[in-house]
């Protein structure tokens, strides 16, 4: 049934467009795509310090908290977790073990159940990049960033971001993600929120309600 429907839909599209099923159209299609108007900004013009400052402002604006590394990542993480009062934390299997301070319970995510993820205080991961203009952090599915469920179910997320991985504009981010575009990607801009009740922004619905970003 689906095969018939497939043929019917494609035929209707071709009829509507007045074209035949002709393989030569593929090169025409690619050529025309490459000529599409793209006069918007593809590259930012801020220097490193300005870009970091903008990222910091935007993350705060969306209720995330940036922290700056002292050079010792292990003690940075210890300080943040102590300040937040978090004890049991999920970590992706590939997160460098030398980053993890003692005196906390780090649970490697070896295919933990949803309930086990839910029972933890939070999760610590790396991330792929940050976008300054929009205050966005991008996660990919990888050994140091874990699978998607691990950064979703726990109520607290500490995310480690290299300052050099902050870009200014959305197009710069998309172009950097080109090489990993087949992986599951998650963009998040601050902790979860809703405006569904009288357009009042309410912080924290289903995703992690507290987001900290350690800039290294």
């Amino acid at each position, binding site marked *: 049934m689906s095969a018939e429907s497939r043929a019917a839909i494609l035929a209707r599209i071709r009829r509507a*467009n007045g074209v035949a099923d002709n393989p030569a159209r593929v090169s025409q299609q690619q050529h025309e795509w490459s000529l*599409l108007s793209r006069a918007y900004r593809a590259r930012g013009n801020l220097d490193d310090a300005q870009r970091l400052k903008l990222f910091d402002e935007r993350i705060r604006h969306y209720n995330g908290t940036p922290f700056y590394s002292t050079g010792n990542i292990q003690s940075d993480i210890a300080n943040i977790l102590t300040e937040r009062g978090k004890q049991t934390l999920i970590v992706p299997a590939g997160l460098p073990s030398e980053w993890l301070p003692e005196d906390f319970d780090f649970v490697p995510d070896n295919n933990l159940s949803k309930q086990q993820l839910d029972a933890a205080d939070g999760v610590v991961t790396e991330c792929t990049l940050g976008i300054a203009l929009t205050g966005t952090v991008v996660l990919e599915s990888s050994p140091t960033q874990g699978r998607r469920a691990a950064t979703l179910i726990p109520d607290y997320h500490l995310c480690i971001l290299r300052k050099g991985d902050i870009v200014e504009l959305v197009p710069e981010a998309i172009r950097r993600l080109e090489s990993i575009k087949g992986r599951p990607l998650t963009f998040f801009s601050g902790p979860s929120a809703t405006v*569904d009740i009288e357009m009042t922004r309410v912080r924290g619905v289903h995703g992690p309600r507290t987001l900290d970003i350690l800039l290294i």
Partner: protein
Amino acid sequence: MSVHIGNAENAPSFPRAARAALINTQLRTNVRNATNIIQAKRNNMTGELPDWEELREAGHAIKNHTLKYLDLYLEQFEANVTRAGGMVHWATDADEANQIIGNIIADCTGKEIIKVKTMTSNEIRLNDYLENSGITPHETDLADLIVQLGNEDPSHIVVPALHINRTQIRDIFQKKIPLHELGIDNLTDDPQQLAEAARLYLRHKFLTVDIGFSGANFAIADTGAVVVVESEGNGRMCLTLPDVLITLLGIEKIVPTFRDLEVFLQSLPRSATGERMNPYNSIWTGVTPADGPSEFHVILLDNGRTSVLANGEGREALNCIRCGACLNVCPVYHQTGGIAYGSVYQGPIGAIVTPQLQNLEHSRSLPYASSLCGACYDVCPVKINIPEILIFLRGEIIRDEQRTLLGKFQLENIAMQAMALVFSSSGLMTTAEALAKFAQGPLVHDGIINRLPGMLSGWTNSRDLAPMPRKSFRDWWFQREKDKDQ
């Protein structure tokens, strides 16, 4: 093929439904408050981008290009989803889509599904279909949950519960959510508390239900990826935690490449909710080992979209990215809210999408639900010329009516034909002007004509008429020419 757009074919005409909406002052207050807030935020966010117009232009170009090669892009998308371990199904109409989804769920053990907000599932009335088959769908977007629990109709494509205020929401929750079991006593109408109640209520579903269901904002041909943008995290839950994921998408949701997201991930959030970026965007391709669902189905839905595509002047309606900016800015929507449109797609975009999807067989009053002020075109992030399409559709409907004997002898048609004749002849025009000036005398009150007599009253039912001036432009012109000659 039988196209159904929600229950639009049985909805009352817009003027009738609007009259009911207009006397509901609570509804109008809620709608006005909400649209004013979103619109102000949207204006700030688009205003701060120096290249906003270039982004609109690019979005327009990409979407038009996609329509031109839609068959090829769909085939590429299908091939890439399949390569990544997903399964692609094609549905010509709502019934077929429902059947496909029902069959997929029948093969699973669970009898419940968790849903991310999807207008397309409202379009095919999936929830009704599933409930009749013994499956329980749980809406997880806060607004959709409110609408579902309150047995309401969605009134806005982005914020469907915009017509319901906090007190009404509290009442719905008190009636429908087992608050006591969740440890909530004395629920107030504070939005923070209401959201917390929804969080607790849905948490259990997220952790236990095995089938997820979503729509899509974009489907990327060159990777086979699907994109869902959202705010609350309920989307991520539904897309990531269940074993089986089913995604329903209209065939117009395709974009050519991953790179094209750099345009739409800027224009959509700023237009839709007035944010620089949505709190969450999820992008996934087929299935990923040890990450997310192990079974992934995509249903590509036509349901009238190919008829729209065949409408040379109306087809750009398919370029819509469902941001809702045209609803928020529309003076008609402001007054009536969304339910009067009788469709899951409301406002100016709904007025061009709903009738076209149904091949102009139903919802024929919707193209008239507009003052043609053009504000919708100005805010559209993909530059759909909505007023032009509204006029085109009005023309199509008139031409269609003129084909029937009844339509031909309808008063409005006869009057319009007579007007056409008068306007095309200078002599007739002069006579008509003189007659009208004479006849209008008793009808003018306070400088306007607000009620024409008898069969002409149809014209003044919804508009005032300016009386003929004592001296018309033509009189003045003739006089001027005469004076010149002397």
